[in-house]
C-alpha cells in the first residue's frame, strides 16, 4: 500500500509522461496484481471497492465485468468509452491529458480480471491531440513491455488500440459505439443481447468509461477499503466534477463522491459569475434533469440525485445564471438533441426535432398558449419508449425545464 489517498488527477506539469507516472508508483499495482493475484481476486477486490461506473448509468464496475461469460474460448474485448460527448462533461479529457498511464494501467487490470487480450479506446473525434497523447503513452508503455506479450513476465498478453470517432454524440451510447468501432453507422443496437454477451464483433465485451477504468489502479494501489473511504460506502472513490457555465472558476474538480452540489459550486468553482445569481443547475451532464437554486444541497452521488429526481450522470455541472432566459436554455437543449438524434427510432428522430421547432418558435417570440403542454406531451412520448437511452436523455432536461421554469416560459410566450 502506498501512502496518501486515492487521487486520479496529479498536480505536476509533466504528469502525463511515463517517468512521472512511474515515480508516482505507476504500473506497480498492475505488476503486483498480475504476478500475485488470480483474475477472480481482482474482480472481487473491485467489487469490494464499490466502484460505480462513471459514464452515467452508475452500474457497479465489478458486477458489469462479472456479466461476461467465462466459458468458451471466444475472444473478449474491452472498450474504453472516451467519447465524452455529453454537454457539460470534460473530465475524461483531463484524465487522458494529464494521466494517460493511469488509464492504461487500469486497462491492464480490467483486462486481466475479465480475461481480455485486446482493448480499444474509442475516443471522440474532436479529441485529436488527446488521441495522439494516448498513442504516445501506449508507445512508451509498450516499449517497457507493459503491453504486448507476457506482460510483467506474468504470461498475460494484452494489446490496446486507439480508435477515433467521427463526431457523433450517439456513439457515446455503448452499442452505437460498438457499431462505429466495427466500421458501421453509429446506430444503437437493440438489447438484449447485451454487450457483455454479444458485443464487439459479436464477442463478449466490457464497455467502461475512462474515469471508471482510471479508478481501478487506485483500488489496487491503496486498497479497496481506502478507496471506499475516499467516497461513500456504497459508491467509493472520488469523482471528477466538471463545472461550467455562469461560475467564477469553471474547471474540473476532483472531490469525494457525495460532496454537496452547492459546496462544489460555491467553494470550488467560486460561486456564480460576477453580478449574477444562480437560476438553474444541471448536475450531471445535459441529460440530467435541471435543478432549481433551492435544490442545490443535494450530495453528488447516484442515490441522492435520484432521490432529488435528477441524475449524477457524468457529473458535468452546468450553472445557468439569472441573465439567461430559460427559453434560450430550452432552445439550446432542444437543438442539441435534435441535431444528435441518430434517426433510427421514431420517437427520438421526430420528437427531438418537433420540440426544437417549438422551442425556436418560443424563442422567436411566436410561442402559442399550448406549447408547453405539447412539449411535455412530446417528451413523455419519447421517455422510456425509445430504442436507446437517448430518448430519456432528450426528454429529461426538457421536462424539467418546462416543469420547473414554466412560469418564466409562460411569461415569455404571452409577451
Amino acid at each position, binding site marked *: 500500500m502506498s501512502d496518501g489517498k486515492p487521487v486520479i488527477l496529479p498536480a505536476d506539469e509533466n504528469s502525463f509522461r511515463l517517468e512521472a507516472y512511474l515515480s508516482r508508483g505507476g504500473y506497480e499495482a498492475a505488476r503486483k496484481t498480475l504476478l500475485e493475484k488470480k483474475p477472480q481476486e481482482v474482480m472481487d477486490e473491485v467489487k469490494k471497492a464499490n466502484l460505480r461506473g462513471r459514464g452515467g448509468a452508475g452500474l457497479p464496475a465489478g458486477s458489469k465485468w462479472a456479466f461476461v461469460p467465462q466459458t468458451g474460448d471466444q475472444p473478449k474485448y474491452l472498450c474504453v468509452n472516451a467519447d465524452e460527448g455529453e454537454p457539460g462533461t470534460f473530465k475524461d479529457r483531463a484524465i487522458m491529458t494529464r494521466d494517460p498511464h493511469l488509464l492504461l494501467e487500469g486497462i491492464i487490470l480490467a483486462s486481466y480480471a475479465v480475461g481480455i487480450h485486446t482493448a480499444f479506446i474509442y475516443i471522440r473525434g474532436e479529441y485529436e491531440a488527446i488521441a495522439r497523447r494516448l498513442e504516445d503513452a501506449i508507445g512508451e508503455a509498450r516499449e517497457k513491455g507493459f503491453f504486448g506479450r507476457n506482460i510483467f513476465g506474468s504470461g498475460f498478453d494484452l494489446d490496446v488500440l486507439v480508435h477515433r470517432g467521427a463526431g*457523433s454524440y450517439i456513439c457515446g451510447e455503448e452499442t452505437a459505439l460498438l457499431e462505429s468501432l466495427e466500421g458501421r453507422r453509429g446506430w444503437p443496437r*437493440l438489447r438484449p443481447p447485451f454487450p457483455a454477451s454479444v458485443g464487439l464483433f459479436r464477442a463478449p465485451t466490457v464497455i467502461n468509461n475512462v474515469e471508471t477504468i482510471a479508478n481501478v489502479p487506485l483500488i489496487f494501489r491503496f486498497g479497496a477499503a481506502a478507496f471506499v473511504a475516499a467516497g461513500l460506502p456504497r459508491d467509493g472513490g472520488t469523482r471528477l466534477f466538471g463545472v461550467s457555465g455562469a461560475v467564477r472558476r469553471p474547471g474540473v474538480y476532483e472531490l469525494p463522491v457525495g460532496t454537496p452540489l452547492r459546496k462544489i459550486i460555491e467553494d470550488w468553482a467560486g460561486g456564480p459569475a460576477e453580478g449574477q445569481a444562480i437560476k438553474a443547475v444541471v448536475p450531471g451532464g445535459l441529460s440530467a434533469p435541471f435543478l432549481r437554486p433551492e435544490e442545490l444541497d443535494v450530495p453528488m452521488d447516484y442515490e441522492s440525485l435520484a432521490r432529488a429526481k435528477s441524475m449524477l450522470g457524468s457529473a458535468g455541472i452546468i450553472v445557468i445564471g439569472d441573465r439567461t432566459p430559460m427559453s434560450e436554455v430550452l432552445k439550446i437543449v432542444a437543438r442539441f438533441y*435534435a441535431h444528435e*438524434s441518430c*434517426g433510427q427510432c*421514431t*420517437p427520438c428522430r421526430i420528437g*427531438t426535432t418537433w420540440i426544437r421547432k417549438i422551442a425556436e*418558435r418560443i424563442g422567436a417570440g411566436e410561442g402559442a398558449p399550448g406549447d408547453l403542454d405539447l412539449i411535455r406531451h412530446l417528451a413523455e412520448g419519447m421517455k422510456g*419508449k425509445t430504442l436507446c437511452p437517448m430518448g430519456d436523455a432528450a426528454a429529461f432536461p426538457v421536462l424539467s425545464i418546462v416543469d420547473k421554469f414554466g412560469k418564466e416560459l409562460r411569461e415569455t410566450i404571452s409577451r
Partner: protein
Amino acid sequence: MVNIQIDGRPLQVPPGSTVLKAAEQTGIVIPRFCYHPAFEPEGSCRMCLVEIEGLPKLDLACSTVVREGMKVWTSTPKVLEARKNVLEFFLADHPLDCPICDKAGECFLQIYYDQHGRYASRFLEAKEKKKKKIPIGKKLLLDRERCVLCTRCVRFLRRVTGTGELGVFERAVKAEIGIDEGTEIGNNYSGNLVDICPVGAITDGDFRFKSRAWFLEKGRTVCPRCSRGCNIVIQSVCGFPLPGSQRKIYRIVPAENQEVNGYWICDFGRYGYQDIEENRGKAIAVNKGGLPEGKTANWDNVLRELAAEIKAMSEAGRARRIGVVLTSLLTNEELGICRQLFVNVLGVGEVFFADPKPGESDSYLLTADRAPNARGAAALGFTPKLPDLERLPGSLDLLLVFGPHLLDHFPAADLATAFQEISRTYLLAAHRSALDSLAGTVLPTAVPAEKRGSFTNVGGIVQSFERAVRAPKGCRPEGEILTSLASELGVELG
C-alpha cells in the same frame, strides 16, 4: 411449451417465441412497421410496445421473448397512448398526399391511424421537405417524405438478395433512405421492396397512378414463369371502374408459402402479368379445313368437327396418324386428361412436348426451367421430346398443338413446311404467335391464372390453385376443351 397470458387469455407457445408471434397465435395483431417476419426484430419503429406485468416500462412485442408465467397486455391505456404517440410522430412530417398515393387503402400508417389516431394535428411547424421522386433502379421510385424509416428495404437488400444497394444516410430528422450515386437496384427481386414498404415510400413505376388498392380483386395462384411455382396473388379489376366488363391485371404480388417462396417472388415472375394481358388470342380462327362449308366458327362447331375427325380416324384404325404436341405449361389435370384421352383410349401415334426454352437461373427462386409443370408431366409418365419436323408430315394426318412453343425450337419457315403437309392442324394457344397463320384452326385458350388445377414444382411439391382471374371472353381453359372433346368422343375420364 411456455405458459403465458395475453390480454388475460392463457396461452401455450413454443419456447423462444416473441410476444408478437405469440399474440398472433390468439388472433391479436400487434401493429408494427419495422418488424417483418422474414427478418430479425429491428425494434426501431416503436409501434409494437406492449405492457408486460412487473416491468416498469413498455416493452417491444417484436423482440421480447416469452418467459414462463409472463402476462402481457396489448391494449391498456398506456399502450394505446404510446401507439398514438408514435403515429403522431410519423404524421408530423408525413406529406398526407394519400389522395395521390398508390399505397392508400393498404398503407399501414393509414390503417393504424384509423384504428388508433383520429385526433387533430398539433403540429404547427413547417414539415421537413424531402425529395419525392427518386429513381432507385428498375421501375422503383423512392419518396422520402412518405418514408417512415422502418428500413425494411435496406434489410431486404442486405439479408435476402445480399446486394445492399440501399442504406440510411444523414441522421436525426434528416435521416433518409438513399442509394450510392451512380448505382441502382438491379437485382431480380426489386419488386418485393414495394410490397414490404409499409407506406407509399417505394412505389412501382408500372403500378404508379394506375389503380386504387380498394378496386383490386385478389386471386391467389401459382406463378407459371418457372418451375419454382411461387405462390402469387394476381390483382385485377373486372368492370368498375373500367368501362363495360373490361378486365385489367394491375399487378402480381407474392403470397407467403414457406415451403416454396417464403415471402418473395422474383421480378421475372412479378412482371409476368404481361403474359396474362398482352398478345392474347381472342377468337377462333379457321384458316383451312376444319369446318364444313357454311358452319360458323364457334366453339361447339369446331370441337364437334375435331371430335368427328378424331373419331373417324380412330374407327378407321388410323389413330396412330394423330399427333399431339403438349406443353409443361398445362396443369396436372389437363395433362391427366391428355394421357387418358390420347394415350390410353385413342392410342395416338406420337405425344411430343414443346416448352419454352430454358433461361438463366438466378440461383435463388428463379429456375432455368421456364415452364411450371415439367415435374408434373414426368410424374404422369410423359417423356418430353420435340417432334422431328422432317418425319412429321409423312407420319401424321392430324396434329394438335398446345401452345406456341414449337417456335422456341424451330424456325417458323420449317414449321410452315411441316404444317402445310399435314391435312388437319389445330393450335390451342393463349397467345398469338407466328403459328397462328400456319395452323388450320386456332383455338384461344386460357393462361394458368385463368384456370384451376395444380402444378408440380421443381421440388416435387404439388400445388393446387383456383382461378385467379376471369379468362377473356372467347377463351377457354384447355381442361374444358379436352373435357368437351372427351365427351363428344364418349370417352370416360374417370
